[in-house]
């Protein structure tokens, strides 16, 4: 996926969501659970749970050099992570 993160498109981005990923930029490397990818800017939202707190990192799409899948999400991971960001679990805007 080198160099082509922006070109991957929303369907491939969605397949990475709720999974643990490694994101490389020119100088740094970030790891975390992928909460979402902004389809407009291709930026990634990564979350790491540290001692019952959530540390959130947004990596800007233009700076991404490589994204690697590390681990599939396990069961409650997604909801568990959202509980740190929102008092209520996410519901669809369509509902």
């Amino acid at each position: 996926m080198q160099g082509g993160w922006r070109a991957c498109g929303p369907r491939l981005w969605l397949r990475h969501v709720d999974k643990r990923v490694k994101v490389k930029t020119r100088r740094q490397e970030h790891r975390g659970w992928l909460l979402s990818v902004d389809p407009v800017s291709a930026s990634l939202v990564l979350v790491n749970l540290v001692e019952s707190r959530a540390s959130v990192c947004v990596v800007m799409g233009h700076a991404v050099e490589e994204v690697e899948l590390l681990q599939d999400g396990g069961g409650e991971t997604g909801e568990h992570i959202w509980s740190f960001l929102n008092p209520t679990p996410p519901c669809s805007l369509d509902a």
Partner: protein
Amino acid sequence: TVATTEAAGGDEEELQQEQHARSVLRERFLRCLLAMNNKKVRFNMHENVTVEATFGSSDIDVLNFQVSDLHTPIGVQKEALIRSQDVISFTFDA
């Protein structure tokens, strides 16, 4: 013509899937932006520059971030816009 109709049908389905993926991702991203509001955020910028500020919001294209109390090396800027092109990543604690 059957083949072209089928191809068009496939494209239509693909487009719908893509639009659905786009809307799911965008909604989740917007919820993250909401969660960032009023949080102390650390911006990692080019040339190893790190600045801290209180996150406000971003514009719809995510071209600029609106922040308050931006701590720069030459002082604290009460209100500021940060160009997203100048940012590599940013972090906050939820």
